[in-house]
């Protein structure tokens, strides 16, 4: 598998991850489905996975970058599993609306399992690792990183508006920090 093909595979993976994060953000903005702390932690784990992909695209192919992806995905998987277990008993409710029959945290769990499988396969089937730095970043790679970076900035802004410089409420109903700024709500 040539270096170029690896870069394109990583770029497609990053675009896929951005698609999942973008969908969650669109749901937040359009349906006013505010993310809970565990939901935000799952998003963070997705960004952690994406940083490994960014380094594979922009710097060089290195097993360490795939290791970063696997570590982030394992952590994200545990967080998603925790949320699934919170609602696994019938009658204990759920958080958010389901998408294609499954809740977002269940989809996140599946995504993290897929990331672990994909990164492990890459580690198994890449015959030898060239640690040389890439000469340049291809257009598809730059696009993928650009979109991913913008999503990260959007999440920084969204989380600040929702939680300010502190802890997020367990069951958020509004952008509390924004409300406080506008004088709509006095939080103790």
């Amino acid at each position, binding site marked *: 598998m040539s270096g170029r093909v690896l870069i394109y595979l990583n770029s497609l993976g990053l675009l896929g991850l951005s698609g999942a994060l973008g969908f969650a953000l669109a749901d937040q903005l359009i349906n006013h489905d505010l993310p809970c702390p565990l939901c935000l932690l799952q998003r963070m784990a997705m960004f952690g996975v994406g940083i490994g992909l960014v380094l594979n695209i922009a710097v060089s192919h290195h097993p360490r970058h795939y290791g970063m992806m696997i570590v982030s995905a394992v952590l994200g998987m545990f967080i998603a599993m925790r949320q699934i277990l919170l609602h696994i008993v019938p009658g204990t409710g759920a958080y958010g609306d389901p998408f294609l029959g499954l809740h977002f945290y269940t989809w996140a769990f599946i995504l993290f399992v897929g990331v672990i499988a994909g990164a492990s396969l890459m580690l198994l089937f890449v015959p030898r690792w060239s640690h040389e730095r890439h000469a340049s970043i291809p257009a598809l790679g730059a696009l993928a990183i650009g979109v991913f970076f913008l999503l990260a900035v959007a999440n920084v802004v969204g*989380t600040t508006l929702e939680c300010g*410089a*502190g802890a997020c409420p367990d069951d958020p109903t509004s952008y509390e920090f924004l409300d406080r700024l506008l004088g709509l709500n006095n939080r103790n």
Partner: protein
Amino acid sequence: MRGRPVKQVARIAQAISGGLVQGYVPRLIELGRAWQIKLILQHRNGFDELRAMMVLPFLLFTGAIAAGWRRHAMLSILLWLAGLAAMLAMFRYHVTSSLDLAF
């Protein structure tokens, strides 16, 4: 005769220093401790808030992405590690309730 004023000065100095050590210094330490405890109690909620700063891991990961994009691999990895540590701290902060499970 020459030794008498010296002895008197020494006695006064001893009394003052003794008084300081035995009286004022412990009082000052006590006051300092009380003030410190008051400060901690007053700002404990603020410290807790900052410790649970949810946006911090996002900020660190955004920095890591930017560093990776600019091809600073080591900086990116360091920021990623810091973000991961912050994430674990947030997870610990928010996971407080026990799971309602029975097998």
